[in-house]
């Protein structure tokens, strides 16, 4: 997904003058020791990804308060939290995925990308290869972890209709079939199929 991408020029995204090293990825799941889970929780407790929009506040609140408990409570769903950190250990982004039941005619196993959140100041950052947006890198990694979990071919994420950036990111990453959620008109389920 990455090597064939066209080079991003600073003019393409003015904010992309911020180039960052490829982050290290740390995996947190239900088998992680309590000390490391507590460490993750204290890292996430001050994570800032919102610019003040309601749907961004909701994600920030989730990351700060629920992301670690979700790992503990949804261990049976293979819930994994990925922490993306720079060389100094500072958190750059967070992503989480788990198995969810998708009710078609019958309930089916599927992967849900629960959350992808970038630190506020790194929203439009690019990797030093100048080809990959940090957001796309994070999404690519969490999609790969979902694929490796082997939960069937359906994968999706539930995105606020106000969140144009995430909707575009989903489309770029081939989660490009929008499905309405009858109970929640403010959100859309963006779906794709693994190869």
């Amino acid at each position, binding site marked *: *997904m*990455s090597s064939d991408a066209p080079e991003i020029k600073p003019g393409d995204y003015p904010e992309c003058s911020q180039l960052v090293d490829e982050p290290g*990825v*740390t*995996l*947190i799941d239900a088998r*992680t*020791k*309590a000390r490391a*889970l*507590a*460490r*993750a*929780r*204290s*890292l996430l*407790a*001050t994570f800032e990804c919102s610019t003040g929009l309601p749907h961004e506040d909701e994600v920030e*609140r*989730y990351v700060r*308060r*629920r992301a670690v408990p*979700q790992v503990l409570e949804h261990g049976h769903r293979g819930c994994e939290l*990925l*922490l993306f950190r720079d060389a*100094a*250990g*500072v*958190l750059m982004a967070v992503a989480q995925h788990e198995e*969810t*039941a*998708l*009710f*078609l*005619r019958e309930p089916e196993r599927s992967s*849900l990308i629960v*959350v992808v959140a970038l630190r506020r100041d790194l929203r439009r950052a690019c990797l030093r290869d100048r080809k990959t947006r940090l957001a796309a890198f994070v999404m690519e*990694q969490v*999609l*790969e*972890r979902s*694929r490796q979990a082997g939960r069937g*071919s359906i994968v*999706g*994420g*539930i*995105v*606020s209709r106000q969140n144009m950036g995430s909707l575009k990111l989903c489309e770029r990453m081939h989660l490009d*079939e929008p*499905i*309405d*959620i*009858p109970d929640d008109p*403010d*959100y859309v389920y963006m*779906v*794709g*199929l*693994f*190869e």
Partner: protein
Amino acid sequence: MILTRPLVSKKAILACYRLGMEGDGEATFRTLHRKGVLSEGLSVCLRSDETGKLAGRFQVFSELNLDAVRLARHGCWDEAKAIAQRARDLEGDPATLQLVSSLDQKIAAADETDDFLDDLFLHSQTLGKLLTRLAGQVEEARKMTKALQSLVTVVAGAVQSADGEVAEIVADHGPRIAVPREQLAEQELDYQGAAVTVRREKLGRGSAFSQVEPAMVVDLDEDAPGQRHRYPFAPGEIRPGERGIATVKALRESAKRIPPSDRVIVIRRA
């Protein structure tokens, strides 16, 4: 909010009394207990969720015992006994008992008391109001003990910077304290944002003894029981309408697929 952990292990108390020296301290512990400068502690039994069998038994103590043994080491026996009595009171406080029992159903086993305490304070993050009340009682007991005022500084806060030789820890309400980064690294707490408690004790003649330990992040804005905030993007199950079902069916019949990544993924398990 970052708070000190209100309960500690026997090992932590001994390390505090012996200025960080490790080793079997059973005799020392018994002596301190006999002299009345240690509380009895709380005995906690954990049972396995699956079998109901005993999965572990741990003895935990109020953190005030750390202050009591420090005072004893400095020869302030009366004050040490008074603060040990306050530790006993806190160990019998309903808030402490609620805290300890909050873990009942949540872990199957832990190998050591320190592992048990790690689990306890991880799972009790939503008991913010209770933990804050306990922390307030500990603080109050410290303030009432004059000898401690001049002897010990306790700061619980977040590591602000940890990239030099010295790391700075800043508490929510202002106080800050610096410690050698190496000291944090030994506890795997040498990263920005880590919740840390620093206890610094004056030893006289310009020397001091400082200990770092994990602190806990508590959630003061917890949801009321049974009224957890709903996050639409983490629903647990998804029920699309008829049109959604048709969309998935059409997608399956099309050739559109997400190609695998050609990037090498290196993921480190925490």
